[in-house]
Structure formats: C-alpha cells, structure tokens
C-alpha cells in the first residue's frame, strides 16, 4: 500500500514583515519550516503505518531547491522517500498550476497510490485549495478537515473522522482518495538523533519540468489562471488604550464604562 503526502515549505509567518516603502516581503532572517498542517499529515501517515506495516510513505513537494529541507524533515519523521519538484519553470504557480503539476508528477511516477494526505492549508497562503484541486484533477474523492483516519473494508476503504460546523462526522470512502488534515499538532514532533542521521541516507529525488515531458506553458506563471496585481500592507488599526488592571475593581469599572459608551449595555 502506498501513501503520498504532499507538503509545502513555508516561512514562519510570525516573522514576516513587509517593507512599507516598496510593498515587498522582507524574508531576510525568516526561517523556513515544514508547514505545520503538513506535519500533521505526515504524522497521520505514520500512524496508519504503525497499524499496518506494509505501507510505503512518499513525501512530495513542489518548491525551490531549499524546500528539500522540508522534505528532509518528513524523512526524519519517518517517510520512506521523497520527491522534490524543483524547476524555475514551476515558479509563480497559483493553486491550480500547483495542483496540476503535482497531479502530473503523481500520474507519471506514483500512479499506484492508495491515499493522498495533505494539510488543510499552508500557513503562508492560507488558500486550502491545492488539496481539493488535486483530488479533482486526479478524479478521486476527498475528505476535508480530517482529524483521524483508519483503514477499513480489507484496506479498500478509509474511515475518516472529520470536523464539521456542528460537531464531528464519520465518513467512509473507497480508495483511492485524498484526505486533508485539519489540525496542526499541539506539540511538534521530535526525532531521535538516529532518525535525523538515517534520514540523510534515504532517497530524495529532484524532478524538473523536462522529466515530466509536458508542454511547458501549463506550468508556473504561464499555467496559472490567477495573477497577483498588487501586494500591499494591511491597514493598521489605530491602537487602542491599554490600562493597568492590577486592581480588579478599577478594571471592572473601566470595562463597564467602555461597554456603556459603545452601547453594548
């Protein structure tokens, strides 16, 4: 059985600032990390393998050459091998072009997959679109916002617990299928030093556009249907008043006054 995990490398968003004059991102000194939701997807794959040992886990990412660090993290966590789609021609891809490129690579190289696991969204773009787009292009069903996955029906089906607006749902689907994981892990996983050393001996293939043997107009910026026309800093909200509340009575009085002033009481 084969599980593919599609992951993304993202900047640690808490650090990202924008240059107010040029309107461009200041990415200097910002660390790149494996997207936390993707990390949860890897954990989910590993969890399935703990129950069924004959599962191969392959991590796939599209990104610049540095993105191999994110795949290395997947290998440290326990993925068996990894594939990086790295080519200047892929640069500038929107969600559609990303999903399309991933789908082409999967069709060409890992067509015998059973499950694709993805994170609910990447913390930089927050679009949450690549997962469902990938599923649609590959013609497979998807289950979103999952928090738990188990195999059932003689490993021909999965049963997924997913979060819905009013609670939880248990959904079953025949494989192959795609599952997007809803949470990041509460505590990030940690690898042993042995796992870190062993990961560096595992296979990490780098694939370029020419390896996929497809018209290059469908990749990257050229293959994207959306175009970013402007990037700008958000309007900064006027800073409100911050007062000392070490004395509960005074703080409560201030709060009541504020609520009354704004007509909430």
């Amino acid at each position, binding site marked *: 059985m084969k599980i593919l995990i599609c992951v993304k490398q993202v900047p640690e968003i808490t650090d990202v600032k924008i240059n107010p004059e040029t309107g461009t991102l200041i990415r200097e000194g910002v660390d790149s990390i494996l997207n936390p939701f993707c990390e949860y997807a890897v954990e989910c794959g590993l969890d399935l393998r703990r129950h069924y040992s004959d599962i191969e886990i392959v991590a796939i990412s599209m990104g610049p050459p540095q993105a191999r660090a994110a795949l290395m993290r997947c290998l440290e966590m326990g993925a068996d091998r990894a594939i990086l789609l790295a080519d200047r021609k892929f640069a500038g891809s929107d969600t559609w072009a990303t999903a399309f490129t991933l789908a082409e690579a999967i069709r060409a190289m890992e067509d015998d997959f059973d499950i694709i696991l993805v994170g609910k969204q990447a913390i930089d773009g927050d679009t949450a679109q690549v997962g469902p787009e990938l599923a649609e292009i590959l013609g497979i069903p998807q289950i979103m916002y999952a928090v738990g996955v188990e195999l059932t029906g003689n490993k021909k089906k999965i049963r997924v617990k997913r979060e819905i*607006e009013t609670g939880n749902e248990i959904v079953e689907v025949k494989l192959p299928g795609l599952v997007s994981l809803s949470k990041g892990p509460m505590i990030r996983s940690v690898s042993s030093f042995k796992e870190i050393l062993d990961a560096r001996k595992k296979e990490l293939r780098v694939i370029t556009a020419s390896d996929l043997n497809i018209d290059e107009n469908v990749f990257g910026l050229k293959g994207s249907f959306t175009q970013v026309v402007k990037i700008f800093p958000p309007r900064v909200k006027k800073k*409100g008043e911050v*007062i000392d509340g070490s004395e509960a*009575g005074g703080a409560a009085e*201030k709060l009541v006054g504020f609520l009354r002033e704004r007509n*909430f009481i």
Partner: protein
Amino acid sequence: MLKIDIKKCTGCKICEKVCPFGAIVIVDKIAQMQDNCTLCGACVNTCPEVALSIERRKVSEKELMLFSGIFIWGEYEEKDEGLIPKKVVKELLSQGRKLADRLDQALAVVVLGDGRLTGLETLIANGADRVIRCKHKLLGRYTADSFTNVISAVISKEKPSIFLFGATPNGRELAPRVAARLHLGLTADCTGLDINEKGEMVQTRPAFGGNIMASIVSPYTRPQMATVRPNVFSFGELDNSRKGEIQDFYVVLSPASIRTKVVAIEKLRDEREVSIEDADIIVSAGRGCKKKENLKLIRELAEELGGVMAGSRSIVELDWIPHTRQVGQSGLTVGPQLYIAVGISGAIQHLVGMSSAKTIIAINKDPDAPIFKVADLGIVGDAIEILPVLIKELKKSQSPCSNS
C-alpha cells in the same frame, strides 16, 4: 471536448445516468457524446473505467465577453429540520449587488437542496434578480461530489462572468473542486471585491497570516471565481419591494456519483444555538484562564452581555470546549460587533480569525501580549480576578432598580 476511450468503455451506463444534460447515450454498449454536452465534467469522475476525459482549450478574449451575470452559491444549513440560508449568503448578495450594478449585469443566487428549501423570496429581497433552484432528494445534505456536479452544470449552461462562494468550510471545499473541474482561476478567502477599468473582478485577500494583502485577477478564465470570508461584508435591510425570478434548474444525480458515505454524526453544538460565526457578541477564552472551571466565568459574562462563548486553539486542545467554538486559523473566522479576549495572548493564528471584529477588548496578564496591538481597550491584569467583579457590576447596572 469530451473524449471517450472506446477501448476502456464497458457500456455500464453510469455516465448516462449522471449527465445533467442528457448529453451521453449508450449506443451498442459504448458511450456517445451528443451535441448538447456543456463540458460540465460530471461524468468524468464517475466512470469506473476512467474512459472519459475532457480536453479544455484556452478561451479567446472575445469568447470571454460572452460570459455575463454575477452568480452566488446560496449555501443553506439545516436548522429545526428545515433548511435556511447561511448569514454569509446575505453578505454575498449585498456585495454581489454592488458588483452587478457596476457591471450592469444580473445577480443570481444558486440554491441547492431537497424539498425543504424555503426562504427563496427573501433572497430576492436581499438583492438577487434571479434565484436558480436546484432541487433533488440527493441534495438535502451537502456532499462535495453532488454539489460539484450541480454547480458545474449550472456554470456550464448559464456561463456567468463571476461566481462567488462563502469561504465557509463547505465553500472552501466546493469552490476549488469546481474550479479544477472547469479549469478556472480561483481566489481563496477574499476580504475585498472590486471591478477594475477592464471590467475584471479585483479580488483582495490577506496572506501570511494577515501580514500582507494581495490583489488578484483572473484574466483568462470565466467565470472569475472567489471564496469570500464571512463576516467581512455588511448587508442592509430587506427590500421586500424588489422583483425577481425563481427558476428551476433540472438536476440529474445518481447515488453512484456520490463517493463519500457518512456513517455517523456527533453533534457538539445544538443547531438552534447561535454559532460563533453568526454571533454579535463573543467572549473568548484562552490559556490564561488557567482552569476549565474558570470557564463558567466566561460563560456567565457572555450570557450577561447576550453573547456566546468561544475560545482559542489551546483550550480546544485541552478539551475545555469543542472545536465548533474555536476561533482562528485552524478554527472559524468570526466578525462580531464585540469580541472580548480573556487570557488570550493573540498569536497570529488567532488574530487571523477575529481581527475583523468591530470592537475588541483584551484582558491579559502579559503587557507584551500581541492581542493588545489589535484591542480597542486592553486591560493588563488577571482576568480571573477581574471577571467576577465585572459580572457583579454588570448585573447591578442591568438590573431594573438601577434606572431609578
């Protein structure tokens, strides 16, 4: 162009059953495409033999001009055994109305459901010119497969220039599925929609956790698709004098086209309760509340103000509240009139989910907590000491005696 691989086709008739337009017929145990095929794609994913595929070509600028109409997915939710439109539909209609007037095009709302669909006139009063009703017994509950098929069919037939979805959990699943099927550009989670001088829709959205904004267009594909963040756009009063049309769209669906099967549902929120997405006043708790027992203070304050209780991801993970009440990146986006953050430090993942609240009050021990950067009023102190006094004061001031 729909391609049928006759070597793979077994003539099983599944595609014939799922085609919304009756554009496939089986002749001599082989599927054949008819002239009325709209390339909606409903058949492709249901074929068990993978014998069907669609080759899409780029549409010329001239052809793009033929697309007209602002369409909105009118998402319904179950309540009291019935189906009623979600709040975001009103927001979309209000904003859609503005776009429609700018472009001088019609505003249509597409509603999917079973026999329980009601309130269609209200949608007209909210701004719609047309209500496109898609009624089928398999549409009583949302599934990605059935809704993708129907929305794709509507788009293929009606050819609107813009199609908007609420960025709700279901909207964020459905829109990319439709976009991928019909090869359309799609922008997620927009907080601003405008029309530029070329008549294109400019879609503005936050990225990097709200640190930057990006404006995006889809120049080559129609309809231009976007999901729109709930609680961002306001809506006005109902205008019952508005005239509009309710039209039925003929739906073809087969159980075979729905691949996922719900086997159990666990309700964590009574559907009659106000969801935090719809609430006007939210009192939200974080780790600074220290103990689960202290949440009764939060609940009490919420009740006193006529609001609801919510919380940060941390306390959901500690199992103090269900995820249906979680605000933030991995939870829900809220936009109340008043948001009181109690013991929430305000990590960027939380701020993303609540920064569109009109008024924000924060109580936190740490004077450097980022939540104070967005708060209209910040109190540096121990919430567990302050809240009991506040609740007492509120009770006093709200009681009838205080009027004298």
